[in-house]
């Protein structure tokens, strides 16, 4: 289990539609080897959480 920075990603719920990757304004999320990977630089805009249709992503609060 990799350490998470700001985004909690639920591997079981996720269907890899990569909507979160594409809505991210800072492009900190990416799909690598079938996993959503987060790079540093999250501005906590919650867009990925709001758009995720599978309730698979949560942004850690403050």
């Amino acid at each position, binding site marked *: 289990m990799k350490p998470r920075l700001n985004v909690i990603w639920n591997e079981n719920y996720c*269907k890899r539609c990569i909507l979160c990757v594409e809505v991210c304004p800072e492009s900190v999320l990416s799909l690598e080897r079938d996993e959503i990977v987060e790079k540093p630089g999250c501005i906590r805009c919650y867009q990925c959480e709001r*758009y*995720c*249709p*599978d*309730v*698979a992503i949560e942004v850690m609060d403050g």
Partner: protein
Amino acid sequence: MIDRSYKELLKLGRFPHTWCPGCGIGAVLKNVAMAMKELGWNNQNTSVVSGIGCSGRMAGYMNLDAVHTPHGRALTAAEAIKTVRPDLNVVVLSGDGDLGAIGGNHLLHTSRRNPDITVFCNDNEIYGLTGGQAGPTTPKGTKTVTSPRGEHYQPLRLNRILTTQAPYFYARTTVYHLNHFKTCIREALLWKGFSFVDIISDCIELNGRRLGFKTAHQMFKWFEERFHIAEGVRDHLKDDELGIAKKEVEAEVKVEVEVEQIPEVQIEGLKLFALEELKQFDGTEGRPIYIGYKGKVYDISASPLFQGEKRMRCHIAGKDLTRDIEIAPHGEELLFKFPVVGRLKE
């Protein structure tokens, strides 16, 4: 900071749900659950009804009383629940194929009867569950499985159908315009009466890929090109507008009818008629036409309606017509225009 208490309304044990990756139904489910939680709707006061189709699974993923109805009959079941239990909030979660095609008749007549139910129509412009055939809301020219050279016919315009007769509530939104989407859901849930939210959603696997989109987000961008948000509350929405069209029932203007004073007629000293005498005055042989009414005798020779055959429709001249007023379509004020010529003997 997002309030995540809406997850209580979802059956998370059954997740991940059955829909394709990137499907808009998940977003509809999530946002409806969020709005319900905000309004305090829970499993004690809410029931959800869904029809058939991909979107028919939505009710099964909600932690509420749910009914999964036959194809197209979601609205009938919802109206039945609302009729029997008016205290329940009834929400219909269904799709455009279920509500617009096979359930089109029920949509027309349920909206006419205006029960207090809220309908969320997941409008993905295709028959998604059966493999991507052209549905009732497929735009003209769209390539589908059943229309490889482009759909021939004009789509069903739900905005026109549902906004013909007040009161109505029709909102169109997309899963991409998220704030607008949430506003529409909230207003629809709060609306007293039949409210319909047409949620333009994406079916990426069976519609989007054929149209040349690779991911759900590219389809979202396409929605942004096709639609724009109309500000304010409208009476009607155009085909490329997102917004809320609502109208409450017009208050009926009450016309006050001024009651005319019945003219006081001095009947003392007038001639006294017996019923046998009255019979002679039936208009024949140049005699005037007299009728009796409530003890008075009126001369109605001037009436253009009393002509020939001693009668006017069903009234016979030369008779006491006091009882006839009960079955007449008019009131007694018609009679007061004519002069009183005598009294009727009891």
